[in-house]
């Protein structure tokens, strides 16, 4: 606690808490996933929520294009009365809240750029944008991302999810050598 007399600069505020033991965090995550299966009969997800948001934006800007495109229609016809009143949209809003809550408790909420020492901030932003675009395309082809396919599909032993998971690790390790200057 700061008192008027010690006038501490921001730099000496308490350090962030260490991350949770990975096995403990994994058990916690696994129990959340199990709860989702027991309560809802479905697993977790993330990319589907972005697709819903994207479809609503496309529907607003280019309604004629959206009306004739089955990809956007799938998302525009989903939801409880509105395409954004969709299960994954609310789940991802929860992820945002839960991540923020954990970050505040661990004193890790701070405006930063995550990168290695040898790449500029602009370069990092460009690669983040490019990586996100690859993810968006890959997740739509595979019908899910690391959450929906690898984690959720993995736990119910879906054959396609396990093939997907192996390929995610293969792609990520395959690209690692080329991207080493970004991270190290």
């Amino acid at each position, binding site marked *: 606690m700061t008192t008027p007399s010690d006038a501490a600069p921001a730099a000496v505020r308490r350090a962030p808490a260490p991350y*949770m033991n990975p096995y403990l965090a994994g058990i916690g995550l*696994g129990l959340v996933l*199990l709860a989702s299966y*027991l309560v809802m*009969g479905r697993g977790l997800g993330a990319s589907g929520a972005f697709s819903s948001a994207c479809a609503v934006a496309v529907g607003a800007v280019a309604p004629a294009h959206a009306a004739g495109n089955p990809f956007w229609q799938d998302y525009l016809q989903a939801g409880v009365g509105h395409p954004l009143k969709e299960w994954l949209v609310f789940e991802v809003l929860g992820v945002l809240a839960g991540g923020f809550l954990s970050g505040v408790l661990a004193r890790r909420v701070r405006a930063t750029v995550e990168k290695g020492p040898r790449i500029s901030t602009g370069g990092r932003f460009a690669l983040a944008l490019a990586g996100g675009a690859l*993810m*968006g395309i890959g997740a739509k082809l595979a019908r899910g991302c690391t*959450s929906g396919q690898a984690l959720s599909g993995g736990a*119910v032993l879906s054959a396609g999810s396990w093939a997907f998971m192996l390929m995610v690790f*293969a792609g990520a390790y395959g690209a690692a050598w080329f991207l080493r200057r970004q991270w190290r």
Partner: protein
Amino acid sequence: MSMPLYKLGAFGDEASLVVAFLIGIGFGFFLEQAGFGSAKKLTDQFYFRDLAVFRVMFTAIVTAMLGLFWLGWAGVVDLSLVYVSTTYLAPQIVGGLLLGVGFTVGGYCPGTSVVAVATGKLDALFFLGGTFLGILAIGVAWPAVEGFAHSTDLGRLTLPEVLHLPFGAVVFLVVLMALGGFWGAGALERRLGGKGEEEP
């Protein structure tokens, strides 16, 4: 059989959105606690510096899998009502590869990028913007890629069916594989990731 609650009509669609938000809070909380709001922590996996992604992911898979297996065996949950996504083998292989490359290039995956944004990572905002652009691109190009995206449709296919083994045997093999991986992860970090030497 009293579960899955929603599929058996315990509550309706509006209430399911509240459940979604609460489950999301738990999901985001443990992702952030694991350190997955940090692109450096996530990508350390791919340089063998810190295999936390593997440890967390496989502990979570084993935990949920064992819970479903035992509760199904005890007759608490009707596993035929639990959603198993359809296998489309070729698009899932290509999509997985693209996503994996995108993981190392971008530093996040869609779920972890949300947690990163929640904890102030500015690069994660660009990653999220890129994800929207990617979805926009494939959505606009959908008539051209739809044929491939719907190819090699193998239906609701599970590993026990592929391997011609009982459900319990595959569960046991996955647990063994995970334990072997956890045992090997530390050795990989020491041999290939330079753990135990000075940190750069």
